[in-house]
């Protein structure tokens, strides 16, 4: 039976900070699919992705006292922890060599592949939404957000002026905002 608490985010944070078991059960039961989804988009392998989700929860538990609601929502904070741990994992030495030793072009292909592989019937809505994004813009967002590339790295890899990457990133994010309000 999943735990569901009817409480404000503020109260949830307070209970997490008090180390309350029920609050952590609630956190897991309500956010694990969203968080696991993000990790899974970066790391398709379920076992490695599970390890990352576990590391993320330990990190959330360790750092919840330092969470500052003024700087953003709890969910965004947790999402960033998961995303950063997953990106770190793809860069670590023990991450599968077959997955690691690829040029960006290959990982771009893999990115497309990853998406089509992971899309299940109930996620067709996403394919429609994502289909509305310009493929170049989507690539740019995915490289930065899911792969942790810097603008300078993208500019170098794709032989684009840094200014162009910056302008495109802004317009890509603007278009994304129209789709995800």
């Amino acid at each position, binding site marked *: 039976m999943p735990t569901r608490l009817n409480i404000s985010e503020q109260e949830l944070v307070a*209970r997490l900070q*008090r*180390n*309350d*078991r*029920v*609050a*952590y*059960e609630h956190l*897991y*039961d309500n956010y*694990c*699919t*969203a*968080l*696991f*989804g*993000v990790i*899974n*988009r970066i790391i398709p392998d*379920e076992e490695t*992705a*599970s390890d990352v*989700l*576990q590391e993320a*929860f*330990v990190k959330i538990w360790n750092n919840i006292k330092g969470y500052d609601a*003024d*700087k*953003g*929502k709890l*969910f*965004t904070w947790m*999402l*960033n922890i998961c*995303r*950063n741990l997953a990106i770190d994992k793809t860069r670590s030495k023990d991450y599968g060599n077959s997955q690691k030793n690829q040029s960006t072009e290959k990982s771009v292909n893999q990115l497309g592949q990853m998406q089509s592989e*992971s*899309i299940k019937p109930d*996620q067709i*809505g*996403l394919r429609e*939404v*994502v289909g509305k994004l310009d493929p170049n813009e989507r690539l740019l*967002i995915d490289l*930065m*957000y*899911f792969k942790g590339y*810097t*603008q300078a790295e993208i500019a170098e890899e794709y032989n684009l002026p840094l200014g162009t990457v*910056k*302008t495109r*990133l*802004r317009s890509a*994010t603007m278009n*994304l*905002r129209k*789709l*995800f*309000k």
Partner: protein
Amino acid sequence: METREYIESGVLELYVYDQLSPAERREVEAMAALHPDVRAELEAIQAAMDGYATAVPATPPAALRDRILSQLDLSDAAEPRTVQMAPPGGTYMWLAAASVALFVLSLGVNYYQYSQNKDLNGQLAQLQSDKTVMADNNAHLTRQINTVTEDLTILSNPSNVKVELAGLPLSPAAKALIYWDKQRKSTYINTAGLPPLAEGKQYQLWAIVDGKPVDLGVLPLGPQETILAHMHDVTEPQAFAITIEPKGGSAGPTLDQMIVLGKM
């Protein structure tokens, strides 16, 4: 508009993509706290990104829940659970009684630990507040030492000429001390011996050069951290005098309001 430019610089996107240095992040956070339109823009970008990132939910393996939750050192204290007991009667009666006794005992232990914990938390809070007070004291003492050191440097300067200004009929007990550096021509004054002034009045220091008064500035109002006040430079003073003037000082001295005078 200034914030428009800031928003269009693309720095908010980089914040959301987590591509800024800690100092740059703090700047964005400060801008968002100061300007509601920056904050609104940041929240909109963040919401879009959160939505895109979580557009493909995935169910983790069922066993992961227990694996993760058992790894966290969590406390049950906040949510008391009901205790299941065997129905009373028969041979299990004594077991039930024993478990009740144990439960009561464990409540007692819990309460003891809880109150000890509370005590420790109280002590910790006290220590932390003591620490803050001591840090404040320390900062205050450091400031005082710095100003005293500055004063001492000025007082021990061998090219200083010390001039005592003595009280005039207006206030015979008043006095002040001038330290005039004959090499650098700088003037310092100790005014601890001057009486308090009426509201709207301020002391003003004059040097007499070639028989004419030269304005060396008004003395600072209110309590001072330093003993010596730094006044304007003067080249060949023959005497120093202080007058009582309207707040802010006057262009020339009000001679019947002269309170102390000292010759070189």
